[in-house]
């Protein structure tokens, strides 16, 4: 009796050991590039609820992807819609309930790190290692750079893969071409010339605006000072800033802590006190249309914004509306006028990373999920997702350039270039860079190509890109993103509107608060880990 028990125990132990060994080997259900039984995965998809949009989980493009995945890999894909503006809260709910989709996307890496620390994220490293040969498109598109971007050097874990930021464009400085002509001014090429231009706008308000002279706004900005004054402030940053400093002090996404940032803001403070900046700028939050309306009405002489901001939105955009309101000549052009201390028009662009793709720990089909990523990274599939059907979503010019058409109805793209579906790439990529550049220029209805080409070129001219320092987790950064970003915005706005003689006091107070509330701790940890990894 005892002996039989022993045998049974031994055999069952063997069975258990055998099955666990089996799970580490390649998925036996995957034969000849397909699964033998149909696997199911769920993928997160943003629901923007845009008027006239199609249901994000069930439309022309999801049908295309589902069909492709089923035919190629025998994988059934189901989309889980998540409202775009409550994305974090909804994902929290889903994770807590164990219902999170198999493939999730987010813009914030610290969020993923937090989830990972709680045990909620799947480590991708072993799977990427194991299945590398099955994922040629993914590795082709993202390269080892983006795939291993977030790998922890000590533990080797990869919590998320970085999508590729293909069209890496950021900010541009725009001025009213017609006002320059009217005042006989050349395009500004230096800071002094830009300042003189602003003063000229202010002093010639009656000439430029007639009866509306009191509404003159030489330079406009918004509460997001760091973003909207990027070229100016960052021209004060020393050209020879080391990679180390750039990274250690660069965790704030407006780079508040970079050397000499303060002087850039001081310049804005001077302008504000001279009456050159729109006085109401801190009052209006994100998405408020007041500033846009002032620009469209023709009262604003210059501003800095996203690289193509005035040219977007076709009929509703600034370019067309301004021409409607004021006249044919009233246009904004992009200018390059803030050289740094080495005389270079340096632009600081993001590292080529975009969204982060991660798999929650509840993901039972890591291979199928990775194959999904591979599928949508193949040039053929993502081209189709980005430009759609010929004749319906786009027309092809003689030289091969693609011009997008406005689509309504069930084949509509819910997001520009279907970015919500192409989660591994951000930005149009037709495979040929020249063709792509030409196509980008074509896609601004109502705007002459010369403006786009100029803006396109200037915004990434003399670019210095963000770098990656693989030092593992920065604990001090956990959960601090939003709070520190708010402090930064408050500091910058308050510093600009302060009286000139109070600027230093206001700056120091806000800056020290930033450091004391966690900024310093992050700097210290980053510096220590960087030096440990790369030496000093």
């Amino acid at each position, binding site marked *: 009796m005892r002996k039989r028990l022993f045998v049974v125990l031994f055999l069952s132990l063997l069975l258990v050991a055998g099955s666990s060994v089996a799970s580490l080997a390649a998925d036996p259900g995957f034969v000849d590039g397909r699964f033998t039984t149909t696997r199911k995965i769920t993928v997160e998809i943003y629901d923007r609820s845009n008027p006239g949009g199609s249901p994000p989980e069930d439309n022309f493009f999801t049908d295309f992807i589902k069909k492709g995945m089923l035919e190629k890999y025998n994988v059934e894909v189901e989309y889980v819609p998540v409202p775009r503006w409550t994305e974090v809260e909804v994902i929290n709910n889903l994770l807590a309930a164990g219902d999170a989709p198999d493939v999730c996307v987010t813009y914030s890496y610290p969020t993923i790190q937090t989830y990972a620390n709680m045990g909620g994220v799947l480590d991708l490293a072993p799977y990427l290692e194991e299945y590398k040969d099955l994922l040629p498109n993914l590795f082709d598109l993202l390269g080892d750079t983006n795939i291993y971007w977030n790998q922890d050097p000590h533990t080797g874990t990869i919590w998320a893969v970085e999508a590729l930021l293909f069209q890496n464009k950021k900010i541009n400085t725009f001025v009213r071409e017609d006002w320059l002509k009217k005042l006989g001014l050349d395009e500004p090429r230096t800071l002094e010339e830009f300042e003189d231009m602003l003063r000229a706008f202010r002093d010639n308000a009656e000439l430029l605006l007639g009866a509306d002279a009191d509404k003159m706004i030489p330079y406009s900005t918004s509460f997001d000072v760091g973003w909207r004054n990027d070229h100016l402030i960052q021209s004060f940053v020393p050209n020879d800033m080391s990679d180390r400093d750039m990274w250690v002090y660069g965790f704030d996404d407006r780079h508040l802590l970079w050397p000499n940032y303060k002087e850039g803001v001081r310049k804005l403070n001077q302008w504000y006190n001279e009456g050159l900046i729109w006085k109401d700028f801190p*009052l209006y939050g994100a998405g408020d249309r007041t500033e846009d309306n002032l620009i469209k009405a023709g009262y604003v002489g210059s501003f800095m914004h996203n690289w193509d901001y005035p040219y977007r939105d076709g009929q509703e955009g600034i370019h067309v509306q301004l021409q409607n309101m004021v006249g044919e000549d009233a246009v904004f052009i992009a200018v390059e006028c803030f050289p740094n201390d080495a005389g270079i028009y340096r632009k600081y662009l993001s590292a080529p990373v975009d969204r982060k793709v991660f798999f929650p720990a509840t993901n039972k089909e890591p291979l199928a999920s990775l194959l999904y990523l591979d599928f949508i990274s193949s040039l053929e599939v993502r081209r189709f997702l980005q430009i759609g059907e010929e004749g319906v979503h786009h027309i092809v010019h003689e030289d091969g350039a693609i011009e997008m058409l406005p689509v309504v109805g069930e084949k509509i793209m819910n997001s520009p270039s279907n970015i919500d579906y192409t989660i591994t790439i951000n930005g149009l990529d037709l495979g040929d860079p020249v063709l792509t550049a030409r196509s980008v220029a074509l896609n601004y209805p109502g705007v002459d190509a010369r403006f786009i080409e100029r803006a396109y070129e200037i915004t990434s001219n003399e670019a210095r890109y963000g770098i990656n320092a693989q030092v593992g987790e920065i604990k001090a950064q956990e959960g601090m993103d939003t709070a520190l970003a708010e402090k930064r915005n408050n500091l910058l706005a308050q510093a600009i509107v302060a009286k000139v003689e109070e600027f230093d006091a206001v700056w120091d107070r806000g800056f020290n608060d930033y450091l004391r*509330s966690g900024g310093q701790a992050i700097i210290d940890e980053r510096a220590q880990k960087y030096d440990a990894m790369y030496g000093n």
Partner: protein
Amino acid sequence: MKSTLAVNRKRITTYLRKYWSLYLMLSIPIAYFIIFRYVPMTYIQIAFKRYSIVQSPWEMPWADNNGFEYFIKAFRNLDFLYALRNTLLLNVLDLVIGFPAPIILALLLNELTFPRFKRFTQSVAYLPHFLSWIIIAGLAKQLFAPTSGLVNIALNRLGFESIPFLNDPTHWVFTYVFLGIWRNVGWNTIIYLAALTNINPELYEASAIDGANRWQNIWYITLPGLRPTIFTLLILSLGHILSSEFDRPYALTNPLVNSVSNVISIFVYRYGIRGLQFSLTTAVGLFQSVVCVIFLVAANALAKRFGERGIW
């Protein structure tokens, strides 16, 4: 002995025969409270635990310092202390200025003799209540912005300087309270107006015979008639002294006034919802609740001193 037992049993049966229907009626709401309020409440224990999104609260490990780590963390955080101060400041102002306003308005409306005008005023007075705070903030900026606000433009034309309604902390506080009153005063009169209908009209008839004037009517008849309602609402308002709504400060704030506009709800939003620090924010919420309950009990006891019923 035996007779007392029998008497007791009879008492119990008569009691139950009389009141069984009441218990039946209560059972549904009580079941509701247990399922929908008390069951989720077990989550509050994460205030004392190290949060993990994949574990149930019972499984999570205890936090340091006997579970009080997050309370300590909150009170060490300067932002939280400012949020606490601002919440109290704004709520107290709201109470002191905003509580009497609907009562006064209800009394005023009550004095109107033209019924159509009265009804019209009533209906218009509560229109602002239906505007969301985002819309109200937009309207406020249109009116009060330093250079493009209509009020300031008018002031400038008359030769006065712009008033920084929204961009100076002190002014902002009063704008904040004023907008709150504007939005809610009409709506809050509804309860008082409904309460006024309960006052026996014969009392007014009697006082007319005695030759009382308007103010005497208000003081001796109307206000005492409203007393229970006023006290109930006052107790409930005091019980919310540390609670913090989110929409109003979030819509009205801007980077220049954060020293007064950062209230507890915004702190929780930043650190908890966006920062995923659930334990911290649950601890803060728990602290708020405890303080509110203390105020509630105190207010209730005080009301009983005044001879009112209280809400217990």
